[in-house]
């Protein structure tokens, strides 16, 4: 695990205890429409282009830098959380490489900041929300709905064996 995560910032395996899942919160009704400069039609920041990206894979992340080298602590937090759950196969888009996408993704989700996490094409939130979902067990449940078995479930099973 990357040494950059401060020891005080502990993400315990205790978060693996799932509970009956509740549906992902509804995105703000109509909030993603209009407003702000949009990329040109067909441009990398257009609604169509972003829509294609978020549907590309069950887990899609828009971040600063890459999973191998995040360039922002909040983006790194998302990568680390996914890694804890054993999720290494996902689509990550570096918005620092593409200003049109950087603005386009904010327009699409009506969310002003990066990173942004999409599960099954649906906007889930940023780093704070993903951390909460990790800590309260929701992330294990949401991954299960996508057919992804969180690695933390196996870690907990190993602990139970002791």
């Amino acid at each position, binding site marked *: 695990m990357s040494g*950059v*995560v*401060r020891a*005080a*910032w502990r993400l315990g395996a205790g978060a693996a205890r799932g509970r009956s899942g509740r549906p992902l*919160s*509804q*995105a*703000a009704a109509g*909030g993603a429409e209009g407003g*702000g400069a949009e990329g040109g039609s067909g441009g990398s920041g257009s609604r169509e282009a972003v829509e294609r990206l978020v549907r590309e894979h069950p887990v899609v992340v828009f971040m*600063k*830098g890459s999973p191998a080298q*995040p*360039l*922002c*602590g*909040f*983006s*790194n*937090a998302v990568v680390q959380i996914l890694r804890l759950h054993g999720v290494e196969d996902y689509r990550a888009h570096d918005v*620092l490489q593409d*200003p049109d996408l950087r603005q386009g993704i904010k327009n699409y989700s*009506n*969310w*002003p*900041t990066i990173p942004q996490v999409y599960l099954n094409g649906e*906007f*889930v*939130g*940023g*780093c*704070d*929300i993903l*951390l*909460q*979902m990790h*800590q309260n067990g929701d992330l294990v449940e949401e991954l299960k709905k996508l057919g992804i078995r969180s690695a933390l479930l196996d870690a907990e099973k190993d602990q139970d064996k002791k």
Partner: protein
Amino acid sequence: GATGPLASTIRAKLAEALEPTHLEVLDESPWHGGPPGTESHFSVVVVSGRFQGLPPLQRHRLVHAALSAELAGPLHALAIVARTPQQWESDPHAPPAPPCLGGSKHDRRRG
């Protein structure tokens, strides 16, 4: 808490929009690579009855809505803890912030 002009604006707008029972506004800009004195990265703890019944995404959207002008301007990053008074009472602590990895230093010149 933070005392600069942007911090004060953030505090005032959140107070008006969400009538919090507890509000913390922390300026974390010095830890994110901006020039000294720049107010750009903030962390807020907002405890409000308005969050009752709302999932985290909706709570954060309420906070964003209160600060939409700032987020379109100088406010580049905003970490949010949004709890109801009951939630805060049972756990009056915010999680520690993830360490910065350069942040705004990696941005190209702003257009």
